[in-house]
Structure formats: structure tokens, C-alpha cells
């Protein structure tokens, strides 16, 4: 009889942690034969991740209640993430704290609509414009007494101005547009010591091309000299403040309501159009859209890019908000709202957990996100991921639009069949809406 005792001898460094704050080391054998069916198991995980994503999809965060009329315009604070400014149709401007969801300050700014709000570069003044043909400048800090707040500076314009934009370049300037004359006016803060920071009463410059009124305009956030405006007569006009003349005019089939510039790609902008679609353009090639984004079932009113430049959010008359990836034509639908007097806060990714995540939690989220991405093309995963309960109106409209599109397509193919070959040219969807360029 022989006894052979095999003793496991291990180096403590391999399994003991150095401090009690370290995690325990778990040796693992990654031999693939020990972990079979990897694709199948990962598929199941992906499916579960997709389902969980839908289960935890709770995008609504809260509402900012306080306006007594519809909200007309909103503005972000340039230096504070938790501050939001909003102006309503009854001439009130409210300053909100997003963290507490409370109204911090209320200004009775204008008679009639408040059309535009902006905060100056140094965060000293709030500027508002309204339908009452005035531009008002307010101090950033609320007044000490409870009296009615008065603006520090009021400029009475000759025409009713509708929008104001603060351009954060080296030399600060404000621009506002007028409804009737089709002009964009450029104002400068005074350099005078006494009235430093106040806007001068007279515009230093105006930009114009054509007489039709201007719908909206946006500055390029990267190349801050370039701006784009949309006019009522379905043009998009590009300007450069360094040049004497405007740059170019693009005509689309229907009116463009707003444009938004990509904050990470200087020459890319997206136009929200009345034809339910959005068009992303390269500023240098206006004869063809880079991408056509379609999912809305009514005119798109507004568009804005996320600060990362990877996505943009759109609002439409169909009472829905959608988020589009910059390079894709299909969107994520997040919500629908009614035009009451609330401001609502939503999460961009519905199932995301807010706040700082634990390291392991974070890695799990990353893994499940990657899995969903990896198996995105599998029918079940796609089905679950895309499934949404939309309002009845949107559902029916979508159906109708789909039918219209197919019928149009059918008609075109029929026409092509019954005509001389190549007599009816094939126009790609990216060029369909473009009427022309004006030099």
C-alpha cells in the first residue's frame, strides 16, 4: 500500500488581494471547450437585453409647470447645465432649475409673444425679444426686492423682431431677424464704460437677400462667422459675416422651418422641412442631400443637434419628438405631447439609469448595449427593439404615407414602362426635394 498525497501549492500573490478595497481575484479558465455554444448563449443574452431595455424604458423625468400660456421659446444657459430659460405666449420669461424642477425667477418681459431668449457670453444679461418690437436686456441676478423687475436696457425697434441669437465669438454680437423685411440685423454691445455690456440701439449691419420674411436662422457653432437662414419662400440662405454679400441660396420643394448645424462637423447642417422630412447637407455640396431623415408624419417644426454631434432631436406638428442618428434615415421615437403650458423633461435613451453608475453596473450596461448592437439584425431582436405603441393618429398617418409612397412608386414604374426608355429619369431620393441652387 502506498500513500501518495498530492498537495496543492499555491502562491498567495495569485489569490490574495493586496488591500481590502480590492476585489477578490477569481481565476477563470477561458478554454473554449469549457464554455460551448457561445453564439447561442450570447444571442439569448442579447434578446434578454433587448427585452429588458424595453421593460425599463421610462423616458419621462418630470414637468416644469408654471407658465400660464403656451411656451414659445426656450434657451440653454451657456455655463450652467441645470439652468433653463423659457418664454411663453403671454410675454412671461421664466428661469428654471432643472435639478430641483423649480422656477427660479419670473420676468414679465413683453406684451404679446416672447419670440426669443438668449444669455450673453459672460452670463451677465438675459436678452429677450418679443412681438412688441422691443429688445430687452435683463440682469442675470434677480432683483433683491420683490418688486416687479425692470429691464436694464430696452431698445425699441422699428420692426417687430422675432428671434435673437447670441454668438459666442471673440467679438460678441447679437442678431435678430425681422418678420416683415427679410433682414437679419446685427447689434453690438456698447464699448462705453458706463453702458458696458448694453446693446447699442442701432444695428451695425444687416444681412439680406430677397424680400420674403425670414423663418429662422442659426449660426454655425464651430465656424462662428457662418450662418444659415430659412425664408418663407422655401429658401435656405447661407451668409458669412466676413463677406460683403451672402454666399448661396438653396431652394427646396417645400419650406424649411429651421436648420441646425452639427457642433462637431463644421460644414454639416440639417434642415427641418414642411414635407415631413429632414435633409442633412454638406455646406459645400448643396446639389444633393447627404441623408434624408423620414419618420415624422407631419411638418417638422424644429431640429437641434446633441452636443456630441452624433444625434439630433426633432419636433413635429404630429405632436411627437424623435431622435435621429446623424447618419441614419430612421429614428427613435420617444414621446408625444400635447400643446399645453408645460415644459417636459425626457431622457434621450429611455431605459438608461440616471446618475453615476457602479463600475460593474457600467460594464454590464456596456456589454448589453454591445450585444444589442451585435445582434441588431436578427429578426426577433429587431422586432422587439423597434416595437412602440404610438398614438392612433401617428399610426394611421404612417400607414397612409406608406401607401402613398408605394402608389407613387408604382405609378412611376408604370410610366417608365410605358414610355421610351430613359425618357423619364431616375431621380434619387436625396435629390428629389432640391429645386435648385441660386448663386
Amino acid at each position: 500500500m502506498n500513500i501518495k498525497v498530492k498537495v496543492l501549492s499555491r502562491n498567495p500573490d495569485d489569490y490574495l488581494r493586496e488591500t481590502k478595497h480590492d476585489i477578490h481575484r477569481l481565476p477563470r479558465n477561458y478554454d473554449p471547450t469549457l464554455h460551448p455554444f457561445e453564439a447561442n448563449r450570447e444571442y439569448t443574452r442579447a434578446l434578454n437585453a433587448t427585452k429588458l431595455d424595453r421593460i425599463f424604458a421610462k423616458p419621462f423625468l418630470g414637468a416644469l409647470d408654471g407658465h400660464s400660456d403656451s411656451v414659445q421659446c426656450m434657451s440653454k444657459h451657456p455655463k450652467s447645465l441645470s439652468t433653463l430659460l423659457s418664454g411663453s405666449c403671454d410675454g412671461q420669461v421664466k428661469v428654471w432649475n432643472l435639478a430641483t424642477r423649480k422656477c427660479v425667477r419670473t420676468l414679465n418681459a413683453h406684451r404679446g409673444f416672447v419670440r426669443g431668449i438668449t444669455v450673453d457670453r459672460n452670463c451677465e444679461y438675459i436678452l429677450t425679444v418679443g412681438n412688441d418690437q422691443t429688445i430687452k436686456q435683463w440682469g442675470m441676478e434677480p432683483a433683491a426686492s420683490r418688486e416687479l423687475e425692470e429691464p436694464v436696457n430696452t431698445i425699441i425697434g422699428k420692426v417687430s423682431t422675432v428671434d435673437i441669437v447670441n454668438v459666442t465669438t471673440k467679438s460678441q454680437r447679437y442678431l435678430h431677424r425681422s418678420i416683415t423685411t427679410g433682414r437679419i440685423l446685427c447689434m453690438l454691445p456698447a464699448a462705453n464704460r458706463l453702458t458696458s455690456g448694453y446693446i447699442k440701439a442701432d444695428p451695425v449691419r444687416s444681412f439680406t437677400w430677397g424680400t420674403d420674411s425670414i423663418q429662422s436662422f442659426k449660426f454655425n457653432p464651430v465656424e462662428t462667422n457662418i450662418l444659415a437662414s430659412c425664408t418663407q419662400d422655401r429658401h435656405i440662405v447661407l451668409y458669412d459675416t466676413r463677406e460683403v454679400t451672402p454666399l448661396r441660396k438653396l431652394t427646396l420643394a417645400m419650406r424649411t422651418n429651421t436648420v441646425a448645424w452639427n457642433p462637431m462637423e463644421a460644414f454639416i447642417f440639417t434642415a427641418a422641412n414642411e414635407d415631413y422630412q429632414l435633409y442633412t447637407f454638406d455646406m459645400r455640396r448643396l446639389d444633393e442631400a447627404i441623408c434624408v431623415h423620414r419618420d415624422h408624419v407631419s411638418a417638422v417644426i424644429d431640429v437641434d443637434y446633441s452636443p456630441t454631434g452624433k444625434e439630433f432631436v426633432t419636433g413635429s406638428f404630429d405632436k411627437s419628438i424623435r431622435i435621429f442618428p446623424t447618419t441614419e434615415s430612421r429614428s427613435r421615437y420617444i414621446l408625444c405631447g400635447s400643446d399645453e403650458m408645460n415644459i417636459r423633461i425626457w431622457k434621450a435613451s429611455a431605459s438608461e439609469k440616471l446618475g453615476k453608475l457602479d463600475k460593474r453596473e457600467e460594464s454590464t450596461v456596456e456589454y448589453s448595449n454591445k450585444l444589442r448592437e451585435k445582434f441588431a439584425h436578427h429578426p426577433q431582436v429587431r422586432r422587439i427593439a423597434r416595437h412602440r405603441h404610438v398614438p392612433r393618429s401617428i399610426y394611421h398617418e404612417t400607414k397612409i404615407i406608406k401607401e402613398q409612397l408605394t402608389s407613387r412608386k408604382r405609378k412611376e414604374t408604370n410610366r417608365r414602362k410605358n414610355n421610351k426608355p430613359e425618357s423619364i429619369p431616375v431621380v434619387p431620393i436625396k435629390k428629389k426635394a432640391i429645386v435648385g441652387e441660386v448663386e
Partner: protein
Amino acid sequence: MVSLQKEAVMNSSEEELSEDEEEVADDGRHIKLLTAMSKMSGKGRGKSQLRSEPGAVSEFGLSTAGEGVVEVRNLLNSLQKNQDQVFLKKQLKSIVSKKKTLDIPLYSHEAEKIQRTVAYKKVSKDIGKWDQVVKTNRKVEHMSFPLNQAKIGLQSTEDFAQRFKPTTPLEEEIYKLLNGNKYAETKDKELTRAEEEVLSAMSLEEAQIRRAELQKSRALQSYYESKCKRQKRIKSKKYHRIKRKGKAKEEVKRMEEMMKTDPEAAAEELTKMEKIRAEERMNLRHKNTGKWAKGMMRFGKYSLEARQKIADQLDENRVLTQKIAEVVEDEDGRAGDADRVRAVPLSLSDVNNPWFTGKVQTDEEKKRGGSDGTDGAREAGKEFSRPKAVEAEAVDDSENEENAPGVKKDELDGELERLRSKRKLRSEEAQRIRRNGETSENMSSEEDEEEDEEEDGAEGLANELEEGRKEEEREDKKGRVQDDALGVGLIDEETTRKNTEEDFESITEMEEVTPSERLQEEEGKEEKEQTTRREGEKSSREEANVDPSKVFTLKPKNVITVAPDLVVEGDGMQESDHLMNIQQAFEDDDVIDEFKAEKEAAIEKGKPKPVDLTLPGWGSWGGTGVKPSKKKKRFIRQAPPAAPRKDDGLHHVIINEDRDRKISLHQVRDLPYPFSSVEQFQGSIRAPIGDTWNTPSAVAKLTKPSYSTKLGTIIEPIQEEVLKKGANKRRNRPKPDIELDGPKSKRVKSRKIKDKRQNRGNERKATVE
């Protein structure tokens, strides 16, 4: 011109008047006056001059005759072709060609259009500076926002090394050694500067040879290093023991060599050995008094191995303490040889031991060995450490030798010999198994039996025969069970060890006939009768419940199991009982028939059916009692024969070739966009990204999102600094050497600047003073 001429005329007439106031000219004057008057009045004015001037043109009057207006080009023609004059010509021409009037200005809208086009082009070109940044940002795998985050975290050694500037004199010295020195190795170059210099000093061929040598030596060095590392890492004690033994052997050989070639060195070695011997004698290291040895002695009663180990140790002690004989150089060197051989440690694990060298001496060799004096001595020296089993073998061997010439003997003798050889076989096998560390109680007990047999081996032949028969039977059973359990016999029995390839080939041929069968063939008739009777009984018992027709023909599989022959001891009865139980348990279920029917049904179902294209009521009469017409056959279309089933050759499975609908719901039908081939897509799906299959770092890399944002930060639009950074990077990239020479040159520069500053300072001082 006309008026000029007129004046001239007038002047001339006046002059004439003043010059001579004589009447002679009166008539003439009058006529002149008249003509002038006539000219002044009315139509005659524009008419050509009447006056003509003969001879050369004076400087006061210009001839207008013939050509009229003189132009510049007419004058230029007369200029000669000197260089100066050519230049003058050009200048004059350019002056002449300039227009005096401007073009009509463009219409304002057209002018603006041009302006706008120019401006647009300019701006477009200017904004193109972002192209590169945008392109890289789109391609990059991970982006972290905000973009201009300050880098936090520990400084890596590389970073530190790059930024490091020697300050203290010691540091500077070290830095010089590391960087400026020509012997210092650099990252990107294979050779040091000194080596390069040497190479450049040589001719090309020499240099090449030298370099090759260097490379080779380096390679060899690295190979050797890696080999040493590898060997050092081997945990097997056995390996190290064998290696040690090998070294010892080499040492002995070397000694022998040395004896012949360099006796002085050998003598030194001998003194060393003497010293070792003295040390050994002084301590009790290899005695049986130690703790380990005592423990082993306790086990020794039960374990052969322990006994063996103690014996080994004592043996080592004996060897080490053995007095080394003074080497006396004989003419023959024979006696010395023998002594030296004795000096070699002798033990079970001896290199010369036939059981451990993997070589068994054949009979002939042994005979030779017997005649050889040295081998005999070795044999004698070994004997004390041999276990009994081996001894038994030796006895057998000697018997074999004795019996070999004896051809004509009676049957009993032959039988005996056969049995013996068999026993030897078993002992050999036991030996081998023991060496593999697979000893079992079973085996040892068997061995004990054998040993017992051996001890009273001198008893009557008949007795032995009786014993032998029993054993044979046992062996037969064992063989059968083994065959069943192992398929291919794990232990192949033979008298001689395989040494050459032919031997091994012969094994493979022989494998079909198991040793037991072979033995059976050889067996005498009487034995056969006996055994067959018993076996017949057994087989009839086994076959009682098995229907030979209901058996699948399966190909035998080579199942390699390490199942030892422990079951061997169990008698046949038990096994058959077990079989019986299984048979009884499944007596009522006719599984095989059921399965066959099921499979046939599946095949039938899978067969393509003929298509009936007949239209009822067409081309035939209907009603009761009407036979189906023959025409109907025309409308039945026979289906093409089905493709062969996958389970055609496999009798024991049914493979369902129909598509699984449940799975198809989950399958991707079309190739998704970014992939260009099905394989590519499949590959992407197959490669797992989870932590079940990947290391944490790999998972972190694989699951990294395409972009991430930092919580609670404002993400500003991209700034122009990015462009500058990118430009800097691009500029830096093609110069990897900058790291090497950078600090040096910088230092030089900074020194220069310092010098300049100092100079300036001095100047200032000077001026102040």
C-alpha cells in the same frame, strides 16, 4: 490745319510787305490779295491748296501733300532694330494701345452674383480645413466627450522618460552614458553605433560575415535562454531526476576521458570526489536514521516502493562512502575499468539497468554478457537491489536458456515451458505497470501468488500443471473482459520488447488475434475440451435472451480508457448476472423494432409525392359503379426522385432534414448592410464578446461604446485648437528619431539661448555701468 496754313500765308504776305516797299511787286501783291480774298469767301475754303513748295521741307513749314495725318506707327517703322530702339517701340505701342474709355459697368445683380460665387468658393475652401478632423472622428472607434478633457491618471514610465531632463551631475552623467554613448543600444536600430563603426571599418564581405555571426550568436543565445527557461519551468520531478542522472553519467564519461588524456585534472577531480566522500561519511544524510527514512521504514512493511526508496538511499550512501581505489594504470586498463564501473552509483534507477533503459537484452546478448567480465560484475552488483519479481524473471531466463536447446522432450515439459513463458509475460507486464505508477492491490496480490508459486517451484510437475490450467482459465476470462472493456488491448503482451519499427508493425498486424486466443490455439486438445465445455455453458447462458437479428451493426469505436483490469478478479457469473438484469429489464419493450418502424415512417414521409393534376368531372364519367379511367394516369405527374437522406447509412439515427420553423424565426434572412459576405457576418456573430469567453481587459475593449459622455459636463462645440493639434501630430509623425536626438539638440539650443541671454544681460549691465 487749314487755319494754320492760312496764318502762315498771312504771315508770309506781311513779311513780304515789310521787306520791300517797292511798287515792282504791286501787281503781284494785288493778284495775291485777290486770290486770298476769294479763298476767304464761301466755298473755296475747303479746297486744296494751290501753293506748292518745291524742294526739301523746311523746318518752318510742313508738307501735307499726299498722305495726310502722320501716325506713330509710321514713325516707328523708320526706327532701326537696335535693342534700345526695340524697347522704345514696345513702350510706344503699349501707350498707343491703351483705351481712353472704360467699359460699361455690369448690372448690379450680375456683379453681386459674381461676388457671391467668389465668396462662396472662398468660404467652402476655408471650411475644408475641417475635413481631416471630421473624417478621423467618424472613423475612430471610441470618442469621449467633452473633447478637451484634461488627462488625469498616473504618469506612465514612457511619458516620464520622454519628459525627463537630467538635472544633477550624476543624472547627467548617466544620461550621457545611456544616450550619447556609442555602445548604448537604441530602440529602432539593430546595431549600436560602435558596432556600426566597426562594420564600416571592415570590408563589405567581412562585415556581412561578421554581422551574420553576430546575428547567429544572438539568436543562439536567445534560443539557449528560452530553452533554459523552459526546462527550468518543467515541474516533473522525474524529468529532473533523469536529467540529473544523465549528467552524472556524462560526468563519469568525462572522467574516463580525462583519465586517458589529462591525468592531472582527473586527479583533481578525484580529490574532489574524496572530499564529497568525506562529507558523506561525516553526516548521516543518506542513512536510515532521518525522519523521512523512519517514516518510510514504517511504510516499508506495506509498500514496496517505500522499501525501494530506502534501499536507494542506502545504496547512494554506500556508493558515496565507497573508497575510491587508486587508479593504477595497467597496460590493459582492465582492472581499473572494473573499479570505475563499480564507482558508478548502482541502484534500481540505474542507467545501466535493463528495466530502465527501455532495452531488454536478448538471449544472445545475455550470452555474450555472461562471457564478458564487466557485465558479469555489473550483474552481481545489481542483484542485491532487485525486487523479487525481477529475480523471478531472471530465473525464468536462465531456465529458458537451459530449455532452449532441449527440443525433444515430452509434452509435459512443453506445457510447463509454455506456462512459464506466460508467467514471465505477466511478471513483465506487472513490472511495466508498476513503473507507470499504476500498481494496484489486485496486481500485487497476484504477484504474491506467483511469488509463492515460485518459492515452491521445485514441487511436482503435475501439481504445477494443475495450477497452470486454473491460471490459464483465469487468464482467458481476463483477456476477454479486457477485450470488451478496452477494445484495442491497452496492454499488449509479448516476451520481447519492441525495439525496431518492424516490431511495432508486427504488433499492429497481430492485434486482431489477442494473446489469449493465440494461447488457445496452441492449447492441447484435452484442455480445449475442458474449457470449451465451460465456455459453452457460459455462452449459452448469455445468448439465451439476445435475438441476433435485432442488433445494429455499429462500427467499433476506439475508446481509450484507463480502466484497469480490476474487474478481472470478478468471476464470469457476476458479469452474466448483470447482463441478465438488463435483458430482463427491457424484455417487454421492443425498442429496436419500434425505432425501425419510426424511421421507415419518416423516410416514407420525406419521399416526394406524385402530383395529381386531374380535374374531377373532366374527360370521364362520374357516378357509382364507374371505374376510374385509364386516362387518369396521364394527369398524375411523377415526382423526381428525392435526394439521398443524410441518415441513409446510419441505422441508429433519424435525421430530420426539414427546416426547423422555430429556429428559422430567429435566423437572419438577408445579409445586413456593412457586411460583404455571409462568412464575414457569421464570423462577427461567432466571436463572443462576453466575459465568459474573454479576459476582463479584452471585454473592456470589445464592449467599449462608440462614444461616451462625461456626467455633468458641458460639451462645447469642437474648437479650432483641434486643427492645430492634428497638424502638430502630423508633423511629428514621420520623425521617429526626434525622441532620440531631441533632448540633446533641445538642450544645445536652450544652452545657446541661455548664452545669448547672458550676453545680453552682460551688455545691459555694461551699459548701465
